[in-house]
């Protein structure tokens, strides 16, 4: 009796709470809303002095609500409010033809092409190095320290050198950026694939030996498939790193085009809204790319009979 009486009011809210969409998106939505709230408060606090100075310079009387309103609509705020960023983002994505240098789509495409080329180069290099390391002790001893060293020099210091050197031998535009991107992203792939290629069980390797399989057969039929989970884990890390590499590479090129160029131009002219909308574009690009790798991973997993 009591239980049914209690169950009646609970059922409507309970059903909503257990709805798959709610279960899936409620936690994310909560975090997003909390971050937005914090962002708004921070925007008000950070821009307050700026707005107050402006009012006082012009000797106009102001109220607290004028101040708060001002902090969220300043043209060059220290920290733009979320709606300003979104408005600028929407405007620069949909407001111009995708080929216009004012369009964020144009810049994102430039960065994306450098990222994808760099990722492809980096993946090939990473896998090739891992193969060499796995198959030869000598190469492992001689290559590995250099591979690790390569990642200890900050890319911000290396990128201009790359651009200058590659420019001197006649390489401009897409390729130097892709090379910097590849330089950054091959590393997790090498490390992951060394682990992956050595993942097979000793028994499985012994089996291949009892069938006197050639090294190439061992690679194709055992090491490569066994390395798949490691490949996708490292590809996910690598693709976001190659995006960062491409953006960093756009900084010393003088900022002709690309998300990096937008960031640089924005900081030259104090266009914080532009910087933030470029960052938003980079974030969306990165999550899209990681999502694509995840999708490829799922498809490969299905073909390889992974447990559902």
């Amino acid at each position, binding site marked *: 009796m009591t239980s049914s009486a209690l169950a009646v009011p609970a059922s409507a809210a309970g059903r909503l709470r257990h709805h798959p969409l709610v279960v899936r998106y409620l936690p994310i939505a909560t975090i997003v809303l909390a971050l937005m709230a914090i962002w708004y408060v921070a925007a008000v606090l950070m821009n307050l002095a700026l707005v107050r100075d402006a009012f006082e310079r012009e000797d106009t009387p102001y109220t607290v609500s004028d101040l708060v309103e001002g902090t969220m609509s300043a043209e060059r705020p220290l920290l733009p409010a979320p709606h300003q960023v979104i408005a600028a983002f929407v405007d620069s994505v949909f407001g111009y033809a995708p080929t216009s240098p004012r369009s964020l789509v144009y810049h994102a495409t430039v960065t994306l092409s450098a990222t994808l080329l760099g990722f492809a180069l980096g993946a090939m290099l990473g896998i090739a190095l891992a193969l060499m390391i796995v198959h030869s002790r000598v190469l492992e001893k001689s290559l590995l320290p250099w591979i690790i060293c390569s990642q200890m020099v900050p890319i911000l210091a290396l990128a201009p050198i790359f651009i200058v050197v590659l420019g001197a031998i006649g390489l401009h535009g897409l390729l130097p950026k892709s090379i910097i991107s590849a330089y950054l992203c091959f590393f997790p792939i090498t490390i992951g694939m060394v682990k992956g290629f050595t993942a097979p069980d000793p028994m499985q390797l012994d089996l291949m030996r*009892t069938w006197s399989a050639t090294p190439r057969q061992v690679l194709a039929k055992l090491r490569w498939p066994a390395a798949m989970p490691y490949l996708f884990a490292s590809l996910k890390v690598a693709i976001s790193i190659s995006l960062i590499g491409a953006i960093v590479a756009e900084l010393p090129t003088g900022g002709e085009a690309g998300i990096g160029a937008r960031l640089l131009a924005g900081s030259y002219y104090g266009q914080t809204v532009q910087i933030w909308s470029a960052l938003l574009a980079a974030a969306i690009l990165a999550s899209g790319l990681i999502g694509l790798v995840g999708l490829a991973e799922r498809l490969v997993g299905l073909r390889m009979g992974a447990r559902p």
Partner: protein
Amino acid sequence: MNKTLNATAGSASLPRRLAVDVHNVSLTFETADGKVDALSNVSLQVAEGEFVSFIGPSGCGKTTMLRVIADLQQPSAGSLLVNGISAEQARLERQYGYVFQAPALFPWRTIENNLKLPLEIMGFSDSEQRQRAERYLALVNLTGFERKYPWQLSGGMQQRVSIARALSFDPALLLMDEPFGALDEIVRDHLNEQLLQLWDKTGKTVLFVTHSIPEAVFLSTRIVVMSPRPGRIIDVIDCGFPRDRTLEIRETPEFLKIAQRVRVGLRAGHSYDE
């Protein structure tokens, strides 16, 4: 020199050709704690068509023995011939099938494709691969599981697949390293019976490592009792049950007598430690 030894050993008790001829083989591992004698001066002749079990406590070198015959490990001293040629040559000519303690199936391949794996490696034609996969899955009673993945099968079924895989390229010699060690008693009995029928039907030579006395006595034509530190053979027991034996023979006095002799041998080997 080997030739003459073979001849004398062969003509005395074994009229058939030797499948395995191990002569004074020793194997010493270098470990952090010093040298370990995994095998010390071991000699053994196995004729074609025999079913020989190796039994003994862990560390007695029974697995090492099998691995040496399979050329997965090289002896530090002594010589051995497999089907009349060196162990390495026999491996390169794919003259034996090896079954490990675990099924070691490739999880990304279906059962059928797991069975085809050695055939792919050895370059059998597509149609031949298909025929053989069908035939050997039927042999281990797994018809209908072709498209399943290993994780969808029980441990016993997986081990049957791995036996079928070892047989699929029709090697004359079958090396089995505690293939049923991880399975429960009921499944083990069932697989033992199946293995015996298989051996009877195919006429292969089987070398079988186990640490179960009833299993060894039930399956074998000869039982090799081994002892650790250093790994050596302390007794070789003939086991003269008919080839088409059934599980019921385990209740007979002859069976118990042989089991008793194995047990005594194992105990004698152990007292060495104490």
